[in-house]
Structures are given as structure tokens and as C-alpha cells.
């Protein structure tokens, strides 16, 4: 059972206090987007076996959404950061790269 540190309140919350929210950093497509773009936005997930950026909500705590970088093969958590981020923090990316030299990088 996972633990993730909420970047807002600093609580290392356990999974039962959290709500998982799927892949992070999705770009929303609305009216005007092509069918393919819209399909990509809603359904085409990266689903990597490895480094995954994802959304979590500290549902039983401060109620805030945050983002996490986690390995789906080992469940290692590289770090968490605020939901108000358009991409993973640079230092977090560097940390992941150091730990996973074969990681292809964000995007």
C-alpha cells in the first residue's frame, strides 16, 4: 500500500487517505479540436511500464490535488509536486534520470 507525501501539507499520507487520478499533464482539448486530438486527450494514456507522472488527491486530508512521479514497475516514488505545474519540475526530472539512466525523459 502506497504512501505519498502531500506537497501542500507535508503529510506522508497512505493510499487510503488519497484518491488516484490517472495520468498527469494532459492537455485539454475542447470544441475545435479534431476527433483524433480529442480521443488522445480523453483515452490514449501512456501507461508506461516505468516512470509515470500522475495525479493524486489528498482526499482525506487537505483535499488538494497534487502530482507524483512514480515507477509503475517498482512503485518507487521519485517525488511529488503541486498540481499547478505544466510539466514536472526540472530537478525532479534530473533526479529520475539519475536513477533511471534509460528513461527516455518527459514527453
Amino acid at each position, binding site marked *: 500500500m502506497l504512501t505519498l507525501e502531500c506537497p*501542500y*501539507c*507535508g*503529510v506522508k499520507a497512505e493510499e487510503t*487517505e488519497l484518491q488516484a487520478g490517472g495520468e498527469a499533464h494532459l492537455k485539454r482539448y475542447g470544441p475545435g479540436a479534431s476527433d483524433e486530438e480529442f480521443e488522445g486527450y480523453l483515452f490514449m494514456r501512456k501507461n508506461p511500464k516505468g516512470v509515470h507522472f500522475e495525479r493524486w488527491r489528498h482526499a*482525506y*486530508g*487537505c*483535499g488538494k490535488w497534487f502530482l507524483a512521479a512514480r515507477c509503475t514497475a517498482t512503485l518507487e516514488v521519485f517525488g511529488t509536486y503541486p498540481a499547478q505545474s505544466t510539466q514536472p519540475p526540472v530537478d525532479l526530472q534530473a533526479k529520475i534520470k539519475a536513477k533511471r539512466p534509460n528513461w527516455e525523459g518527459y514527453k
Partner: protein
Amino acid sequence: MSKAVSALGGASHKGFAEVAEAGLRGMITVRGDLSSAAMKKAVKAAAGTAVPAARRIEIAGDKATAWMSPDELLVMVPYEAAQDTVAALEKALAGEHHLVADVSDARSVFTIQGAKAPEVLMKLCPVDFGTLAEGEIRRTRAAQVAAAFWKSGAEEFTLVSFRSVAGYVMGLLEVSSRAGGEIFPA
């Protein structure tokens, strides 16, 4: 206001710790910029406390202010004072982007008293009581519902839940404090 009653009418139960519904309490959700001067002033005027730091609760007599999230506080006052406090907060925060909502009737408050009070909560909440600081409010879950608690006395915890599940929470507390259920018997 004799018409206003708490969910359980002050029910209590004595096992290896004493658990009780503590009756009505004025509670006000305040959302806004917690670092703003107006907020500091408003909270000081309403509750007599400073704006608490993250995960902290500031207590001043029968009033208190608890940090709920980076943009939310819970101001606690006597039940009868809630409406006036709402009005005062609204006034003090006018002009700032904020939200003030009276939630006094949406919550239930419980106390857990006794030397072994933590053992009651240890059965229900995934919280490390060994590192729980004085003056810390912990939002978490109690078994299957949301709850928040803090150490409110030398041998006392205060726990807040939603009003609708007051009966469930009391059931949890009662079962968890049953005599013989001490986790660390003397």
C-alpha cells in the same frame, strides 16, 4: 436557541477511555489568501488567534483557528457566536477574494478522554501518534469516514466529523474504547 440540537444529544460512553459527543460548536470555513494582512486581521478579530501555520491549530480560550489546507481555515467559536463571527469575517475580508461559510451545523465534535485516549484513535486512524506534535491538527480518516483531530488536553483528544455520520463515529469510538480492548494493557 433551544431548537438547535447536536446530532447525538451529547451521548457518551465509558470504556478504557471516555468518549463523548461534545455538543454544538460554532465552525466557520474561511477560504482565501492565508498570508494576506486582511486575513490575519480578520482571524485575530474573530477568533483571537494568529493564522495558523500548515497543519497547526491555534487555540485561544473557547475559540480556535485550524489550518485545513493552503487556502482554507476553520474558525471555531461558541455555537451562539457563529452568525456574528460570519458577519464579522465577511466584513473584514470584503474586497478580498474569499469565501466564508457557516458549517457549525454540518459537523459533530467528539472528545476522547483518558490516559489511553490515543489507543482509541490508533485503532481507527492511519496516523503516527508517536510523531504527532502538540498543536497539530490531523485531517485523516476514522475507519471509513473523514475526520480531523487534535490533542485538546493533557489526556484528551477532540475529533470532528461530518454531522451525518455522527452515529457511525460514536459507534467506532465506543467499540474501540471497550474495556479489555486496551492495546497496551498496563
